[in-house]
C-alpha cells in the first residue's frame, strides 16, 4: 500500500502504486485485527522464554511491561495463541478483545 498519506486520492498514488520510502512496513501496525490477546500470570511464569522463541511474529519480548517478564507488543500481536499453547507452565491465557 502507498504510505504517503493514510487515504490518498487516486491522483496522489505513486507510479504503479510502488512503495518509494524504504522501511515503510514499520508504519503498518498489523496487530489491529487481533481478536484475542495473551495474558501472563506472573506467579506461574518461570521466565523460560519459550513464548518468545515460538511467537511467529517475534513480538514477545522481556522487560516491556514489567522488568524480568515477557509480554506481547500489541501493535503487532495477532492473538494466534501459540505462546499459550507452548508455555510449559500454562501460565498464558488468551483474553478476547472487547471491540
Amino acid at each position, binding site marked *: *500500500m*502507498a504510505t504517503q498519506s493514510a*487515504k*490518498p*486520492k*487516486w491522483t496522489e*498514488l*505513486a*507510479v*504503479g*502504486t*510502488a*512503495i*518509494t520510502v*524504504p522501511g*515503510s512496513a514499520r508504519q503498518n501496525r498489523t496487530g489491529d485485527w487481533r481478536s484475542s490477546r495473551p495474558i501472563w500470570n506472573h506467579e506461574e511464569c518461570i521466565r523460560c522464554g519459550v513464548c518468545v522463541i515460538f511467537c511467529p511474529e517475534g513480538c514477545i519480548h522481556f522487560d516491556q511491561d514489567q522488568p524480568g517478564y515477557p509480554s506481547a507488543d500489541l501493535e503487532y500481536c495477532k492473538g494466534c495463541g501459540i505462546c499459550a499453547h507452548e508455555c510449559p507452565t500454562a501460565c498464558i491465557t488468551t483474553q478476547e478483545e472487547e471491540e
Partner: protein
Amino acid sequence: MEQRLGLEASIAIAEVVCRCDVDIVAAYPITPQTHVVEHLSELVADGELDAAFVPVESEHSAMSVCCGTAAVGARTFTSTAAQGLALMHEILFIASALRLPIVMAVANRSLSGPISIWNDHSDVMTERDVGWVQIFAENAQEAADLTIWSFRLAEDRRVSLPVMVNFDGFILTHTIEPMLMPDKEMVQAFLPPWEPLLKLDVDEPISMGPVGIPDIYTETKQVQQHLLTQAYGPIVETLNEFAQHFKRTYKPIETYRSDDAEVLLCTMGALSETAMEVVDRRRKQGQKVGLVRIRLWRPFPFEDLYRAVGNVPVLGVMDRAISFGGPVGPVASEIKAAFYHREQRPKIVEFIAGLGGRDVPLSDFGRMFDSLYTTGETGKIPAPTIIGLRE
C-alpha cells in the same frame, strides 16, 4: 536508410526488435509465434543483438521474467500466441498495474479445444481487459513498424504501459511479403534510450507490487482506467512522429473507400486486405461499399470510430471470435455499445468468420456485403451469422 526485402512478418518483427536494441527477450516457443523467438535466439547467439535471451519453461514464467526485467529498467520483448497468452493471463494484469512498458507480439491463434494451431482472434479477445495498449497489424510491414512504434509509446513517460502488437498467425507469421526494413540508425533515431519513471535499484530501494488493501485498490483501478484512456493522445502523437520519420502513416481507425459508402464493413487484422480487394471489385460493379478497419483496440478509439462510420445506415462487423452465451461477437458488442447513446447510429449486423483458421475467401466477404444491402432494403437486422458454417 531502408532496404527492400522479402520477409515473413515473424522474421521482420525479430529483425526490428534487434534494431530496437532490446536488453532482454524472455519467451517460450509456440506455434505460430515460433519463428519470432527462433530468429531472436539466433541473433543473440550470433552476437548481432547484445541481449539476454531467457529460455523459460512456460509463458507464465516468460511474462514473469519480463516484469522483473522491465522493473529494473531493461528494454524487454516477448512474443506468444493462444494457449501461451492464456497461460500469461494473470501476469498481464500485473505488468500493466506496475506500469512496465513490455512489448509483446501476439501471433493470433485460436484457443483450444479442440486443439487448433490456426488463426483467429479468440486469444486476444480473452485478454481485452488486462490494461495493455493493444494494436493490430494487417501485413508484415505493419507488424514490423508497429513493433518499433510500440517501444516508443510504451516507454513514453506519459504512458509507461505494456503494448501488445497483434498479427495474425500463419496469414502473417509464415507468409513472405515484400517490405521495407529500416536500418539500426534509422530505428534508433526514432527510439531514444528508455528513462524509466521508476525502477528497482539497490542504491535507491523501492518496493514494486505490494498489497493493495481495500482502502487503496479502487484508486489504483481508476489510475489504470485514466492512464489507458489518456494514452490515446500520445498514441496519435507518436504515430504521427513515426509517419514523419519513416514515411508510413498509421491511424487508430483506418478506412477504405468509406466516404460515400452505402454500407460499411468493420474488420480487424490481416483479413482487412482481402476485404479491400472485395470492396474494389464491388465498386467496379457500381456498389458503393467501404471498410472501417480497427487498428487500435485498446484504448478503444471511440471518436475515430464515429468519424469513420459517419452517417452510413448499415454497418457490418466481422468478428474472429465468439463470446459464448453472451453477445456473440466481442468486437460487434463493443461497437453496439459505443453507438447506443448516439442519436445517429447505423443498423449493426454481426458476422463471425475465420474461426480456427477457416479460410475467408472473397466470396464470403461478398455474402457479407449482400447481407448488409438486404438489411438496408428491408430494415431487418439478422441474427449474428457464422459465415461458412455447414448446416
